[in-house]
């Protein structure tokens, strides 16, 4: 909050501080001659251990909002706060570090690397970190999501649900404060989708915040809170 730089590893001194917060975030794109405003002043915050589902029609700016939360994109105006620190002060290297240490990503298309085994995929965020404990942590995480017998399998040998659980394990490898998931059940049938959502719920129980962006009404059953994004503005649904 003060001008002082808080590293991404800084332990939050106030439990009330939101790990991730958007304040009056506006995002405008130049599209040809006209300017398209995808987000029109979004205020949003998650608490530790909270499962928030963001819903809304396609083109409402859901993915843009998730990119803002994940430091993959910068707002045109407004603030993205990590533990109360404005991410606008970060350079590219610090943003990258923050994505690795603070945020976990889960994508609709899983984005696993086919040439790597499950364990190697999970340790992917750490490969350049000389993190010798990572393979052991990866194995533990994979066991936790029920893939203890698939450790050395490659993504092509796994089902969709198993792939997404590998992706969840990957998002947790650096013990993040927040996991961001873009349509995590989009490519899964109802049954495996439920299993994946149960994993998210378990993640929340450990104090990690989960934010999903989805069309899938099933997600809302697991979420603590549902917000709707319509025309670039947030509205609480539940």
């Amino acid at each position, binding site marked *: 909050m003060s001008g002082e730089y808080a590293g991404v590893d800084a332990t939050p001194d106030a439990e009330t501080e939101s790990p991730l917060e958007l304040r009056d975030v506006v995002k405008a794109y130049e599209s040809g001659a006209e300017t398209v405003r995808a987000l029109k002043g979004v205020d949003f915050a998650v608490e530790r251990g909270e499962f928030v589902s963001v819903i809304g029609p396609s083109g409402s700016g859901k993915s843009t909002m998730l990119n803002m939360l994940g430091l993959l994109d910068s707002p045109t105006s407004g603030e993205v706060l990590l533990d109360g620190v404005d991410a606008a002060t970060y350079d590219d290297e610090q943003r990258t570090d923050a994505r690795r240490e603070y945020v976990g990503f889960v*994508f609709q298309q899983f984005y696993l690397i086919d*040439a790597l085994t499950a364990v190697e995929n999970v340790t992917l965020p750490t*490969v*350049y970190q000389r993190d010798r404990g990572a393979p052991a942590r990866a194995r533990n995480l994979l066991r936790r999501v029920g893939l203890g017998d698939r450790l050395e399998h490659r993504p092509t040998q796994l089902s969709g649900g198993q792939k997404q659980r590998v992706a969840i394990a990957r998002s947790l490898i650096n013990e993040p404060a927040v996991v961001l998931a873009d349509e995590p059940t989009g490519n899964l049938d109802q049954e495996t989708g439920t299993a994946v959502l149960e994993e998210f719920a378990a993640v929340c129980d450990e104090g990690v915040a989960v934010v999903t962006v989805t069309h899938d009404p099933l997600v809302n059953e697991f979420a603590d809170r549902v917000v709707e994004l319509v025309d670039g503005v947030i509205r609480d649904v539940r």
Partner: protein
Amino acid sequence: MSGEGDAPGDGPPDADDSAAGPGLLERFPAVLMARRNLSRNRLRSGLAALGIVIGVLAIATLGIFGNVLQLSATSELGGIGNQVIVSPNEDTGRETLSPRDVAAVERIAEGRGEAVPLVTGSAVVTGPNGQTFAQLYGLDRPRALFEARSGRLPEYHRQGALVGRSVAERLDLQPGTAVEIEGQRLRVIAVLAETDDITPIQPDSAVVLPRESFAQDAPSQVVVQADSGEDASYVASTVRERLNAREPRVSVFELSSILDRINEFFGLLNGFLVALGAVSLVVAGVAIFNVMLMSTTERRGEIGVLRAVGVQKGDVLRTLVVEATLLGLLGGLGGVLLTCLAVGALYQFTPLGLDVVLHPSNATYLVVAFAFGVFISLASGLYPAYRAANEEPVDALRD
């Protein structure tokens, strides 16, 4: 299971990652990742490396072959570079050198080689087995110019005959036999060895006699066997300068300057050949550029994921540059190996000597070709790597 226990602290009961040990690769993750990425598409990596193989092979073989050509030519021509032959100027009508001129040449050559005054003539030589026509050389110190095939060359030549190899064969002469030349009976002391050198003094079909045995013993030429090519050109130019200052009294024949020209020519030829090889290597570089561009475009999403989950730009860049460099190292190694085979074949199928084929200067071409191959690959990888590393992850993941 936890017996090995090299995992730090909180290691769960599980054997450590056994595939890639905690060695060098763990310390250089970019190398590990690059190797992994290359082995994912072996055919494409192989083809890209093949381009470098051919380029390195072209540079190295062309360079070495040219160098071998030059080396064997200069070793063949080596002797002539050191000889200076001073004879009377034909325009003056004289056929012999004056004692003053001979003394002058001897003075100039002092410390730089040996000056041997030479009387020449020709005569019919009669041996036990018939007779033949032979060139006659009269000189005092045969060791300066010739070597013996059998028998011994005297330090100072006072008596007897030294016969060339073909004369000896025709007349069946050996050291000890007697020959008759223009009424004189002479004992053969030695048979001369053939020379590989290109020189106007050909002992093969000649008979070498003491100078005194010639009726007219004024030398028709002075042969200076210099210690080195530089000495030879010094002697030649000084003789020209001193003896021909006022009028051209003598003509000086020396090949060291021609040898320089020949060397210059071979240098040029070599440069040309290597440049030819370099062109093929540059073409190989374009192939690597293309492969790297293709594979980074193909892996765009994957690189986007890496960036999204917290891999730094610099690490992506480094990995991709290492990929290109590994291709270069691989190709360069292959090229060097094939070049060694080609040089082996050159030795096997040509009469070239081992000393020329294994001359240390050939290694320079190997090293230069290898280094150039690696450099070209690295340079070709830079732009694709830069482009891929700098793409915003959102853009890469959007589609």
